[in-house]
């Protein structure tokens, strides 16, 4: 049965408390900071998509120059606070820490980054000053990580930015698409406020491109446009029974938890989650933490090909989530319009596909799971229709850009998930920085070149 309000207030609070708690004391942070070797041309920095100077910011914690530490982080990544909570650091900075090569625990980089950035946010240290106004105006569509990162760099450089966001809150997937035990809605709000507080950034909420405003309008009113529109709904499974009551989109499911509160979100007794990416993990663990009795992750390849990290999978497993490898959903059976069973094909691995991973091949055998809810988390699809309507060159909805982050339309730039199809928050932040650099080049130098 699918129902909400399964647990007590205390149980919810407990289940959704911070999964990576911060350092409890300054001393604890200092002990860890002092463990850092201060590597040269550091592997952690090189493994960060935004190239945060990790040894430098950690050294600054050790010298109790917290302001300097936060400045170092935010200079490279204005969402450094959020990234410290949601980054899969085990495959990025911490995964590259040289201590791994000594069979030692890597430096808790994320925890240290959180330490410095949280202090900066709590004290509302504004560490950047806007340059004098250049008189240029840029429109950004989407107040997610790419858009906000782009906006901040532009604003720092004296450009007036207007951000159009279709939701009522900023932060994008950070606010709407990530498990609540990683970042709280309050934190996401605070982070957006902290970024925007530099000034020169006007965020207009509940304004949707293609509905409330047109690209032509933006092009007319602004000197340049940046599209950081992200990706949309979960990929369709395209199998019978997908319309039954009880089949939900992982992003929507997570969004509701974030937007409406834990007790309001209905969850089944027996839940199947399709997919094995970060979103699938976030959906499965949260279904369990909302009170589902059984949750099963269904993935068509094996553990070796899974897109999530070991650390993420361990979170799900420790929550009691079951995992079935080499299983592809074939159809969803229902009764009286409601989900009753999920029928899966048993797969085996065949030849490597375009991603280099061995592709799953149907063996012809099937098995059936008794479930009352199916959560779809097999990737998200870009806004193909919207992008097509805007006449922007794209590949299956993913916006095509050149090496200058420019689309085929002059003065229109793009980046983040809308371009790459969906990567980490930290990748989107870097895309926003790249976009801002490209836009400034376009605004101040391009005329000389052309």
């Amino acid at each position: 049965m699918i129902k909400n309000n399964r647990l007590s207030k205390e149980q919810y609070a407990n289940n959704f408390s911070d999964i990576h708690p911060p350092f409890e004391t300054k001393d604890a942070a200092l002990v860890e900071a002092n463990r850092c070797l201060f590597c040269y041309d550091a592997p952690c920095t090189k493994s960060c998509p935004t190239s945060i100077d990790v040894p430098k910011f950690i050294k600054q914690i050790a010298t109790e120059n917290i302001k300097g530490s936060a400045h170092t982080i935010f200079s490279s990544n204005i969402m450094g606070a959020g990234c410290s909570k949601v980054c899969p650091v085990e495959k990025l900075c911490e995964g590259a820490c040289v201590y791994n090569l000594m069979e030692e625990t890597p430096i808790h980089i994320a925890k240290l980054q959180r330490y410095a950035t949280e202090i900066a946010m709590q004290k509302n240290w504004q560490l950047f000053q806007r340059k004098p106004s250049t008189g240029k105006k840029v429109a950004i569509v989407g107040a997610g990580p790419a858009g906000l990162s782009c906006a901040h760099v532009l604003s720092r450089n004296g450009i007036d930015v207007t951000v159009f966001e279709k939701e009522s809150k900023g932060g994008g997937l950070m606010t709407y698409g990530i498990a609540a035990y990683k970042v709280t809605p309050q934190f996401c709000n605070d982070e957006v406020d902290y970024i925007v507080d530099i000034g020169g950034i006007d965020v207009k909420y509940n304004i949707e491109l293609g509905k409330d405003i047109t690209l032509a309008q933006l092009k007319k009113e602004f000197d340049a446009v940046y599209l950081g529109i992200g990706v949309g709904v979960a990929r369709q499974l395209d199998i019978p029974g997908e319309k039954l009551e009880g089949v939900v989109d992982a992003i929507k499911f997570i969004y509701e938890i974030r937007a409406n509160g834990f007790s309001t979100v209905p969850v089944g007794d027996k839940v199947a989650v399709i997919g094995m990416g970060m979103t699938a993990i976030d959906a499965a663990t949260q279904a369990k933490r909302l009170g589902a009795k059984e949750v099963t992750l269904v993935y068509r390849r094996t553990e070796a090909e899974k897109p999530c990290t070991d650390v993420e999978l361990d979170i799900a497993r420790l929550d009691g989530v079951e995992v079935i490898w080499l299983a592809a959903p074939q159809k969803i059976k229902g009764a009286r319009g409601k989900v009753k069973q999920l029928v899966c094909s048993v797969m085996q691995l065949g030849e490597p596909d375009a991603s280099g991973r061995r592709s799953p091949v149907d063996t012809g055998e099937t098995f059936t799971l008794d479930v009352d809810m199916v959560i779809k988390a097999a990737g998200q699809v870009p806004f193909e229709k919207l992008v097509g309507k805007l006449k922007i060159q794209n590949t299956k909805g993913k916006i095509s850009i050149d090496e200058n982050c420019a689309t085929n339309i002059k003065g229109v730039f793009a980046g983040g998930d809308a371009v790459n199809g969906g990567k980490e928050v930290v990748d989107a932040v870097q895309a926003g920085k790249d976009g801002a650099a490209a836009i400034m080049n376009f605004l101040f130098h391009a005329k000389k070149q052309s």
Partner: protein
Amino acid sequence: MADISSNFLGIKSPNPFWLASAPPTDKKINVLRAFEAGWGGVVWKTLGSQVKNVSSRYSAVNFGAKKMMGFNNIELISDRPLDLNLKEIKECLKLFPDRAMVVSLMADNDRKSWHELIKKVEDTGAHGLELNFGCPHGMTERGMGAAVGQDPEIAKMVVEWVMEAATIPVITKLTPNVHSVVPTGKAVVEAGTNALSLINTIQSVTGINLDTLVPNPYVAGKSVFGGYCGPAVKPIALKMLTTIAQNPVTSKVPVSGIGGVSTWRDAVEFMLLGASNVQVCTAAMNHGFRIVEDMIEGMNNWMDEKGFKTLDDFIGKSVDKITHWEDLDINYHHIANINQDKCIHCGLCYIACEDTSHQSINIEYGKPYNTYTIKEDECVGCNLCQLVCPVNGCITMEEHRVAPEYLNWIEFQKRGLPLNDH
């Protein structure tokens, strides 16, 4: 098992680890706890004229996560009544007759005061006396402590007074607040002291509170120079000890080594450079008396491994290994080697060499790990890369002699050999 019992001028102790004259040896309760923990002996905190101590007495220098790498104090000599100290010394001697009991003294600067003090202390049955010519703060302003130790003539005079009265062994403790400890050392040996001990603390300012701008330790908005000690001063103490051990006059008497001794390894080093035993203070103040357990065991195990049966088998063994620069072998050359299997690619060797040494490490950029190799032709063998490397045994210095025969700088010049050959 090796025999680590010590005999210092006939003063016997089950091990060579004594507690130095300092706050931990100020009263009976501390000293009994020390003996129970296993310390071989104590030098009772300095007795002398009446003083009063202030509140806030210590401060420290931390290094990274390590607290108290260096430590200083502005405490004066014992501020307890002399009679009480004497009574407690007697009681301690009775309870632990097998431990060394030496009493530190600093009388007023006249013969009579010294003679009276010595008589009273000898009446307790103490085994030896240590003359405090080293205390660098407070007492110096009264013409005592380091003020005596800094002037060989005054030191000599005081030792002569002492030797007139003393019937038990006399150790003279030297101050490091001089350009060389040898002149005072020589003067007091010539005046008859039976032994030397060194070093006392070094005048210092450990740091300043960046909020109040008042240096440490804080006493009602002010501070004074304090006596510096702890692990940070060990290299200075070892150097001064060596000069005493190498001087023909001062090397005639036994030396008690002091200055940052924290572990059995430190103790062995002091003894290799000529100390017959060691005195410890800061390490005990940092961790408590229990540290002596590992000092005893560690020294014992090391001696067994090296085949030393008694302390005398290794005391002084490194003294002649410190020579004059002119006598060093210029034909000796070694070159760093990076073991690629052990390298963790932290780049610390590279940046140290590139920025501050001889640009002798090659970098091959990789993502995320760079590869570092030695440019053998450029390497001068300075050791810096090995010193900064966080992995034991990853960087080794390998011998590549320039020529097989010994060649020193004087001979090098005589032969007119070329300079800057690398």
